């Protein structure tokens, strides 16, 4: 199987050099080959398990406002801010 690591890395927004991509493709293939053992398991009619524990139904909370975090506290840990906003570089042309 050919894995397009470049495309996956872009989906995950990870900057990987050519060399890393090649190495990663090899490692990924080894791991996936092992994981394809799962295809041998008979799962006909078996429902999937996505969540665990004994909470079977989402608990809903009352719609009563709580105090929010102070903006200054949050902004202290932020990489770039301007006038109470988080600042990010411009979008590149075409996705």
């Amino acid at each position, binding site marked *: 199987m050919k894995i397009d690591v470049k495309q996956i890395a872009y989906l995950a927004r990870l900057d990987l050099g050519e060399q890393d991509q090649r190495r990663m493709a090899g490692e990924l293939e080894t791991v996936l080959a092992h994981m394809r053992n799962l295809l041998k398991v008979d799962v006909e009619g078996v429902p999937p398990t*996505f969540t665990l524990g004994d909470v*079977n139904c989402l608990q809903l*909370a009352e719609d009563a*406002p709580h105090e929010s*975090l102070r*903006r200054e506290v949050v902004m202290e840990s932020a990489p770039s801010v301007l006038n109470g906003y988080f600042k990010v570089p411009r979008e590149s*042309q075409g*996705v």
Partner: protein
Amino acid sequence: MTDRYEMMIGLEVHVELLTKTKMFCRCSSRFGDPPNTNICPACLGLPGSLPLANMEAVRLATRAAIALNCSINLSSRFDRKNYFYPDLPKGYQVTQFYEPLAQSGYIQIDSPLKKIRINRVHIEEDAGKSIHAGDEIITAEYSLVDFNRSGVPLIEIVSEPDMSSPDEARQYLEKLQRVLKFAGVSDVKMEEGSMRVDCNISVKPKGSEVPGTPCEMKNLSSFRAVARALAYEFERQKCVLEQGGTVVRETRHWDEAEQVTKVLRTKETSDDYRYFPDPDLPMLDLNHEFIEEVRKNMPKLPDEIVSYYVDELGLPEYDARVLTADPLLSGFFDKCVSLGAEPKAASNWIMVELLGYMKAEGISYENIPLSPEYLVSMLELIDKGVISGKIAKDILVIMIETGKDPRTIVKERGLEQISDEESLAGIIDEVIAGHPSVVEQIRAGKNKAVGFLVGQVMKRTKGKANPAKVNVILKDKLLS
């Protein structure tokens, strides 16, 4: 339309729910606060945060689904839609992709009478707001992000591609807006972003069984923009087809300034959202009691109110529709009726004078500038003959502008109608004396001319004369 082509339109409408707090945290969901003041670990996507679902949001979403004639799924689930964007704090949006809250509803539009099917209604969380320095996304130097809106509860209402003209799309949206407003689910304001519309439109030769390639359109800031963008797209896609080309599946952006649609991105290169069930959120199970309770507490919806006004109150259908433009307006009317006003009279005064004034002054339904009590009391004064209808129009404006009740206004300004025959007789005599030729005509049988003389009496009394009385006295004097 004599076109050889036809269009199929489907709409995806996002509506913010009227909750006090966000979908998965208890930050305020208020609109218009200073940037980044309603934020917490959850709606900022800080490490370690977990979602805490809002009961009121589920209640309102269920109410919306019932109002839209959907069947509610007793068990639904939240999924993650994964993509990167600066205003999406967790790198995924929590939505209901695989198992939505509700399915298979419809909305009826009137012209032509048609049911537009609704595919699904599901709950999701809103993203924050990006502000791009410079107007166009593409030329912006940098963007600023405010997370106040991040996590505000939304419902998405996805229609089937059942609309076949921009006008039908507009009707669908107006009806949808009205229903959701009456249901108290959302304030559905396009201008504040609490209602947002994306369109899918495909064009195919008339009668063809093969559906056309749909294009999605975004950035539609008003119903008018929706209709215009659809009309533009129809022409554009038709041109492509007529020239033997094929329509490319893509997302387009409505450029309000140029009144054209532009390519935003093609579907082929769009993100793979990697939807999967959110492991932090167990199934959302609703029981029958919950749904029944929502059903029981459903406010009256516009269709039901229109029938009531027409069938029970005897209003013309036109009046009934105007009065159900907004729940606050129909509430105002209902109050007038419950205070004893004659429905048609109340309707006339509200539709013509009150709404006319509000429109001229740009006043919204939230700020109706008059109390039903005052309007009803004014109507009583007309009924009892204390004031004339003409004077009442002035009184209505004075009530709005001074906030005084109509009786006080009438008393202070001496606006009582002159009904006493003696006073009227004197004025009428003067008018008769002043218009001999008209009098001549009337005596010659031209009865219509009486109206002219009535008008002259009204003029002299500054509208205070009781026109019915004046009429009787005039005829009496001239024809007997």
